[in-house]
């Protein structure tokens, strides 16, 4: 049974009780919640995930709660709780899903240092993982979403998670967070895409989450070897420009972009070095999503021509 097969009331009961388990690939998360509306939002954006019982080992255990006292009724709020602590200020109660998503991201970035974690989207086609590292506001999520809408498997929108020794990209599969104009851009680009509710007036503006498709969810326990690093940058009205980036410069950009490079020290140095040596590196400036997707398709063609016999996909914990 999938989460989307549960009705909202049944999912809300599970959330209020033992919680639900979300296996995202790189992390297994337990979510408990008492927040009106959250069950329906989760049901939409996690529809393709298995409806697992909340048992076994979890990397991250979180709760979304309503505060006690007057805040339950006047200007109602929700609180993110992890291990008994509250790392954030309360959010308005109608921004439960963004709070949950950011909270889980925060926990992952703070804790999971057995991998190199980049701020990057990651997609895969024909066994080749494409890493899309970028600073916020660069159009990374929009391009990642567009690639997924054109048949790429989504591994991650926010976290490029790389095994330190093997160099493979591990999925950290969560709903893809679209912001502001990107929401309508993707809606127009792929009218059939499943989007969750819009959350206006968050700290990042209006946010809506794109549900991972069924094949990405089915592949969330399958890692892939990166072949391409594409640094995307959306510039309105610009002509598409795709230029090679020297590996040394790609290294520095990835190190700056990483959540935990500085913590990992020599391990991070080796991991980033191995990654850039295994990849062709490009900078992609775009304004048209169609052109950008077409360019990434062409780059995949190029790296596919250099194919060796080594398997490029690997099932996690087989």
């Amino acid at each position, binding site marked *: 049974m999938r989460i989307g097969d549960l009705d909202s009331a049944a999912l809300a009961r599970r959330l209020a009780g033992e919680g639900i388990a979300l296996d995202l690939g790189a992390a297994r998360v337990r979510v408990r919640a008492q927040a009106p509306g959250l069950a329906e939002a989760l049901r939409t954006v996690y529809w393709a995930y298995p409806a697992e019982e909340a048992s076994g080992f979890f990397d991250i255990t979180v709760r979304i709660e309503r505060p006690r006292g007057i805040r339950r009724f006047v200007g109602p709020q929700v609180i993110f709780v992890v291990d008994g602590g509250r790392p954030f200020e309360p959010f308005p109660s109608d921004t439960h899903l963004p709070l949950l998503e950011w909270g889980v991201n925060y926990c992952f970035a703070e804790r999971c240092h057995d991998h190199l974690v980049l701020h990057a989207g990651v997609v895969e086609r024909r066994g080749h993982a494409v890493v899309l590292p970028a600073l916020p506001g660069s159009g990374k999520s929009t391009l990642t979403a567009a690639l997924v809408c054109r048949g790429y498997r989504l591994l991650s929108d926010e976290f490029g998670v790389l095994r330190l020794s093997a160099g493979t990209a591990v999925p950290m599969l969560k709903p893809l967070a679209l912001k502001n104009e990107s929401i309508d851009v993707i809606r127009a680009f792929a009218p059939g895409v499943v989007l969750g509710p819009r959350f206006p007036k968050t700290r990042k503006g209006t946010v809506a989450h794109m549900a991972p498709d069924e094949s990405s969810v089915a592949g969330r326990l399958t890692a892939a070897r990166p072949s391409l690093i594409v640094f995307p940058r959306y510039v309105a009205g610009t002509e598409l420009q795709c230029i090679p980036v*020297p*590996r*040394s*410069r790609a*290294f*520095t950009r990835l*190190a700056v972009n990483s959540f935990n490079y*500085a913590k990992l*020290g*020599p391990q991070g*140095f*080796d991991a980033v*070095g191995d990654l*850039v*040596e295994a990849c062709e590196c490009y900078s992609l400036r775009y304004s048209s999503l169609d052109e950008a997707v077409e360019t990434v398709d062409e780059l995949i063609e190029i790296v596919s021509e250099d194919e060796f016999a080594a398997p490029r996909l690997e099932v996690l914990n087989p």
Partner: protein
Amino acid sequence: MSAARRDERWKVSFPTEVRFRRLDDEALVFNPARWETRLLTTVSAAVFEALRKSPATAEELAATVAGLEPAGASPAEIQQRVREILDELNRFDLIRPCAGFPDANR
């Protein structure tokens, strides 16, 4: 003005622990003492790479990297450039003067 003397012999500070990765014409180096990473551009990378092989003076290093400098650069200009690079690598604690010249290989 460079502080590196003409006859001073230099060596890598942490030869076994330092991480060095040549990537195309440039290189990255991780300094374990400072837990920091530096990008070395073409000539700096060649200087550091040469010092990883064996200690050397600015004059010897200048001969090694002469082909990487712009055409027309005089030996004196190349040596001056190398001394500036040595100063910079020294400032980042990536290299240090050998304890006693000519006992260079320790």
